[in-house]
């Protein structure tokens, strides 16, 4: 009988342990844990662009979670997003001139609202409003600024226009950098399909500082890294004449499509080498096998 009792106790312990594990999984590792606990107060903040911010996204001060996004709505009649932040009552002393910013955790992470303290003596009350906000920065704009800083995008020196025709520009778009020797020297002004010649007409704005580019230079559409954005690379030629405003670059190399590369790689076994452009980068996988 005592043996049976020990079975019963052990089995009971097992069942309790199992349910405790289930309760742990459900409450500590799932979205239930993010539900608001304890009293909170609501603060409004208006953003011009909320990017990928979602309801229940965290609100952080100095990286510490102090609340969550309660609701997101479009302000009636205006093109601004009204975001309601539910902030824990414990953090009731946020200065009224604090700045609410939409940040991204990491490069690909989720977005959250970060609050940077101001210096005001007044605190934001329940139902109050954070007047100072900074919107989410789309990655493209940030990249544009980054490349523009070293290049000619808004350089006082001005720039000159050069056109180039490509049979395929891949995902090249206006604002993509133009690089020579890997250094940004300008940007793509426009990408247009040419109705008559059935190819893409790309206009490049190159900084006036770089006016010593030979007119037989080649323009190629390259990709930075495997999944990076595309840019126009200029490979200098040997002509004594230089490119001038309005010139067209004759030698171009179109964007490499991954499918084409794989196709070439597979077909190359037959021995026919593809010397169409003569300017193929040495990185093209012309593997012999």
């Amino acid at each position, binding site marked *: 009988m005592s043996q049976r009792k020990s079975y019963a106790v052990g*089995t009971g312990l*097992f*069942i309790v*342990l199992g349910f405790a*594990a*289930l309760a742990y999984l459900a409450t500590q590792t799932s979205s239930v844990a993010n539900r608001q606990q304890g009293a909170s107060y609501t603060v409004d903040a208006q953003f011009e662009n909320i990017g990928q911010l979602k309801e*229940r996204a965290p609100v952080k001060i100095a990286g510490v979670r102090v609340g969550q996004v309660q609701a997101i709505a479009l302000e009636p009649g205006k093109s601004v997003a009204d975001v309601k932040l539910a902030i824990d009552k414990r953090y009731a002393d946020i200065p009224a001139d604090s700045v609410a910013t939409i940040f991204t*955790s990491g490069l690909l992470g989720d977005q959250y609202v970060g609050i940077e303290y101001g210096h005001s003596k007044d605190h934001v009350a329940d139902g109050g409003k954070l007047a100072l906000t900074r919107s989410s920065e789309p990655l493209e704009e940030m990249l544009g600024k980054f490349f523009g800083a070293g290049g000619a995008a808004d350089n006082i020196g001005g720039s000159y226009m050069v056109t180039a025709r490509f049979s395929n520009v891949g995902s090249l778009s206006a604002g993509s950098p133009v690089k020579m020797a890997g250094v940004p020297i300008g940007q793509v002004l426009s990408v247009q399909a040419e109705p008559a010649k059935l190819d893409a007409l790309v206009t490049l704005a190159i900084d006036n500082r770089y006016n010593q580019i030979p007119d037989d230079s080649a323009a190629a559409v390259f990709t930075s890294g495997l999944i990076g954005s595309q840019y126009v690379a200029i490979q200098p030629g040997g002509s004594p004449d230089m490119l001038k405003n309005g010139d067209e670059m004759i030698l171009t190399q179109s964007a490499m499509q991954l499918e084409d590369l794989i196709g070439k790689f597979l077909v190359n076994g037959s021995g026919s080498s593809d010397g169409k452009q003569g300017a193929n980068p040495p990185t093209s996988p012309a593997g012999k096998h």
Partner: protein
Amino acid sequence: MNARIERDNIVTQALGQIGNCGVFLLQILAAIPRSLRYGRETVRQLWFVGAMSLIIIMTCGLFVGMVLELQLYHVLSMFGSTSMSGTVVAIATYRELGPVVTALLFAGRAGTAITAEIGLMRATDQISAMELMAVDPLAYVAAPRFLAGLVAMPLLCCVFCALAVFGGHLVGVSWLGIDNGTFWSNMTATVDVWQDIVSGVVWKSLAFGAVVALIAVFQGYTAPPTSEGVAYATTRTVVASSIAILALDFVLTAFLM
């Protein structure tokens, strides 16, 4: 009945087994109300198949979580998103690895023991003796073990998943230096209670528990009453359970998710 099946070809044999198994399931379900008076026997079986399996389940859960985290860390560090590795450990474990690995371990640890025990009961005429004493062997032997498997599997699976998350945390945060806060907040932001925990952990493991317990009891109950027969039935429990678990997993995933 068995002798006739063994003369047939393999397809007829397999179909016959599945048919007999289905009939046996109905018999067990019909015997469950009668087995309620043997509640203590069910508790003893639950102790045997559930509580005694805890050590292997916990150890394996811990190591599965640790190795998953280690592998994911190396792949995700290429993309600079190692903070998501805990999330992937949790979701992969809740949705697939937890129920499936627990069920495979359960078949190996508890299923074989059930088959061998019932097969030896049959071989040593204990089942016939019960029938002579007017004790229904389906209600006293088969149904308690089936019920115990049904109850034990979800509980074991929850323990497995909890230990896997703990193992992932151990490797990711304590060893590889992922931030503790992002580890948990990414996990809690992504894992959904209904989608991942209820339909992943609970429903799947309930279904796997029923299948493994049914196959184990059925193989033991129909084992030829020889030592070779019992050995063969034990092997078949593991083989049939493994196939059934993985095939059922696909079907359940297609329906639940």
